[in-house]
Structures are given as structure tokens and as C-alpha cells.
């Protein structure tokens, strides 16, 4: 076991709880578009925050546990939607962790948009495996458009949060 402070564990637990709540709640928000599969990606904000604060390993933990718990709450555990959510979460976490670690030119907005892209690509890959069909590629432009838009939005929110120094006081979360 790695050593980690109780504070950090509590903070991670809170992030997972927030992510779960956002994931479940955003599933209830109707999106006024005639196509399924477009969502706000609010829960991704929590993943990005965890990545920003703690790095890839803990960020991935938060993302995966969040998907797992949310699927239990909403009753979709091991359903196709759950598998798509898992691959999407892994895709976005990987892309965002890479950008956070190896680039300096993106704010949370760029990182979040790239994360949405990774999410969509991971989902499409899993969907094409599930359906044994490459026809899901026709979803790509729609997902690219909505992912960029929602990624911008959630990244903007996260930027605003991080500018509030009082929201993350000092070493409190270490």
C-alpha cells in the first residue's frame, strides 16, 4: 500500500462522491437534441480536478470509481451504457493526464476539450466493438461538436474554480 494521508483520502472520497452525484444527476437532465448520447460531461470536471491535484493514478481511480458507483445508483451496472462510460472515462482521463503532465500551453479549457475528445474516441471504439460494426463512425462529427462545446463549458467552470484561491486552500488537500 502506498502511504497517503487521511486528508488526501478524504478529499479523494469527496471527489468520487461529487463525481457520482454529477454523473447520476446529469443522466436525468434531458438534452434538447434529437440524438442520444450527447451529455454535459459535468462529472468529467471532477476527474480533471483530481488529475490536476493528484496526478494520473488518483485521477483514474476517481473516474473509474465514479462510473462504477453511478452505475450502481442508476441501475446500469454492466449494461452497454456502463461499458461505454468506462471506456469513455479511461479515454478522457488518459488524454487529460498526458496534457496536464507534458504540456504547459493549455488551460483547463483546452485540457477539458481534449478530454472530451478522448472520451468520445474511447466510446466510439467500444461501441464499434460492441456492435461489431464500423458504422458508429457516423456519430463522430456529432460527438466532436458536442464534446468540444461541453468540454469548453466544463473547462471554463473549472478555470473559474481554480482562480478562486480560497476554494483550494494551500496544502489542505495534500
Amino acid at each position, binding site marked *: 500500500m502506498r502511504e497517503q494521508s487521511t486528508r488526501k483520502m478524504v478529499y479523494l472520497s469527496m471527489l468520487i462522491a461529487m463525481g457520482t452525484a454529477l454523473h447520476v444527476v446529469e443522466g436525468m437532465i434531458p438534452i434538447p437534441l434529437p440524438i442520444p448520447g450527447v451529455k454535459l460531461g459535468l462529472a468529467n470536471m471532477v476527474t480533471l480536478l483530481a488529475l490536476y491535484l493528484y496526478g494520473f493514478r488518483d485521477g483514474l481511480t476517481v473516474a473509474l470509481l465514479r462510473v462504477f458507483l453511478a452505475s450502481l445508483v442508476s441501475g446500469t451496472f454492466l449494461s452497454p451504457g456502463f461499458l461505454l462510460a468506462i471506456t469513455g472515462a479511461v479515454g478522457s482521463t488518459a488524454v487529460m493526464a498526458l496534457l496536464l503532465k507534458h504540456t504547459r500551453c*493549455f*488551460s483547463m479549457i*483546452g485540457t477539458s476539450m481534449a478530454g472530451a475528445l478522448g472520451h468520445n474516441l474511447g466510446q466510439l471504439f467500444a461501441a464499434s466493438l460492441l456492435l461489431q460494426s464500423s458504422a458508429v463512425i457516423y456519430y463522430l*462529427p456529432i460527438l466532436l461538436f458536442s464534446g468540444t462545446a461541453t468540454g469548453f463549458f466544463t473547462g471554463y467552470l473549472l478555470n473559474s474554480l481554480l482562480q478562486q484561491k480560497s476554494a483550494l486552500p494551500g496544502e489542505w488537500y495534500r
Partner: protein
Amino acid sequence: MTKGDKILLAALTCLTLLSAALLYGRFFLPKESTRARQAVVSVRGEVVRRIDLPSSGKSSFQVQGRVGPSMVEVDGARVSMREAPCAGGICVKQGWIEHPGQSIACVPGEILVRIEGAALLDAVTR
């Protein structure tokens, strides 16, 4: 918003548009060149000639109507009535037709030139 963000936003926008154009483009372009079409010429209701379209090059032929001979011209994928013996010459003034469903009618001569084939969609309701 940093410069990198803006570049990424622009790149993603371009990628979206490009992929949409590549993937959805072919649903909006009518593929007329691959459609089998025929120009059907009939006099007094009886078919006197069928021409597969598009035909190679220009050609014209005479059709004997009720008031005299008319000249029908075919140029590639399109058809027109070039000469008519009637007074009005409405059929001549109509010019070229090329889409399935279009027709040229010469009322005095009782000649009808129609283009047959799978029609493009007029409308879609759902």
C-alpha cells in the same frame, strides 16, 4: 483562455466540420451521373423512341407529329425540342430538360418528351 486553448478549439472545430463533410457529404449530393435515365418520346400517346441518357455527344432526330415534323435534340444528359412546326413554339422555348420527371409537351403536334428514371426526392416527411 490561453493561446493553446484557442488553437485547440480551432483545430477541433475544423476537425468537426471536416469529418461532418466527409461522412455526411455523400448523403446530400445527388448522384445523377450514376442514375439510369431514359428520354421517352411519344406521339399521340404511343412511344416512338427511347434514348438512354446520358448519350455520348450531340445528336438530333425528327419526330413526325400531327402538324408536321419536329426536331428533338439530345446533348449528353439533356434533351430539348429544337424545331417545331407549330405557331407558338412553346416546346422550343422551354429549352433543355435533364431531370427525371421533367417533360416537354408539344400540344399541336401531340408530341411528349419525358425523362424517366428514379426521381430525386421531392420531399421527406416524418
